[in-house]
């Protein structure tokens, strides 16, 4: 059997497993506000993306950050992160009742789209997170991030006053 054929079969098995288990995945869409520091052009920004639990305490998020005023869909950035629930598990709780309030710490990378040499890692503290997949909704308040812009070697901040995650109905 050729290498190509093996790869195709493996990919098909992987996709089949993924699709058969998609209903069991704690995942949803996320949207929120975004206030950039001096690294970002002056404007009003929003975020929109995808969020999923990868373990009971760890979630993965990938969001687009876009300006809406004064220039809609300008200065777009891709923000990708892994977050850890400090207080209690949130995802894949089965029949167990999860804690409603939580605190998250996130590590991630943000880069401009199209890529124009603006990128860097960030660390975020989300002091208030309320809800979770079992509540179909999670609200995150006052998430403060420390961002390091690699090309300019400068440290800055960004702030998300309010984000809301809507989880798919299981």
């Amino acid at each position, binding site marked *: 059997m050729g290498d190509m054929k093996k790869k195709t079969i493996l990919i098909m098995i992987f996709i089949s497993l993924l699709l058969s288990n998609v209903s069991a995945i704690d995942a949803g869409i996320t949207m929120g*506000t975004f*206030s*950039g*520091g*001096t690294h970002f052009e*002056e*404007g*009003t*920004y*929003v975020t929109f993306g995808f969020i999923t639990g990868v373990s009971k305490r760890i979630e993965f998020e990938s969001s687009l950050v876009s300006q*809406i*005023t*004064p220039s809609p869909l300008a200065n777009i950035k891709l923000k990708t992160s892994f977050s850890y629930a400090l207080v209690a598990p949130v995802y894949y709780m089965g029949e167990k009742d999860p804690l409603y309030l939580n605190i998250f710490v996130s590590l991630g990378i943000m880069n401009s789209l199209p890529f124009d040499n603006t990128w860097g890692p960030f660390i975020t503290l989300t002091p208030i997170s309320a809800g979770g997949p079992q*509540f*179909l*909704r999670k609200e995150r308040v006052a998430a*403060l991030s420390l961002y390091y812009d690699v090309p300019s070697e400068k440290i800055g*901040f*960004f*702030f998300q*006053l*309010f984000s809301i995650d*809507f989880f798919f*109905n299981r």
Partner: protein
Amino acid sequence: MKKMLLTLITFILFTGVLFSSSWIGGYKVSLSGFHTDSITHSEHLSVNLLYSPVLNSNTAVTLYGGYAFSNLFLPVTQSVVGGLSYAHLIAQNHPLEALFIHDSALWAAVDVSVMRVLSSTPHTFLNVAVSPFSLFFGQKFITVGSLILTYNMEMNELDWGVKIIEVTHYLW
């Protein structure tokens, strides 16, 4: 003009009692961005106290007033705001209902406000916000994606803005 305004406010306050439910007061916070160059482009966080003389199962009339100021990092022109909003029920059963555990209803709202910018070159804006998507949860409205038409009364300029999100929370 002043007499007319006072009469209107008195009329709303008194007739409101006839139509109101138990919720009449609370606060609302919103985040907005503006296209006009007369004020800064970073988002304006507006914090308001509100009074709803009319709030029943399909109509809400709200008077509010407050203060708009900066986000954490960038300087934003500060302003005082006062306005009147009218919201009406669109659908009790809406397509996004399954996303929420609590009962929700889809409303639409129109909001007229005056915004006085507190800067060395003060401007007064007449703002009309149209909100086609407002969810009511019994004691809380969450409104997203409102379009704002702004009219600069000193410079006679028409411009626009966006209210990203507004949370109206009744406390008493």
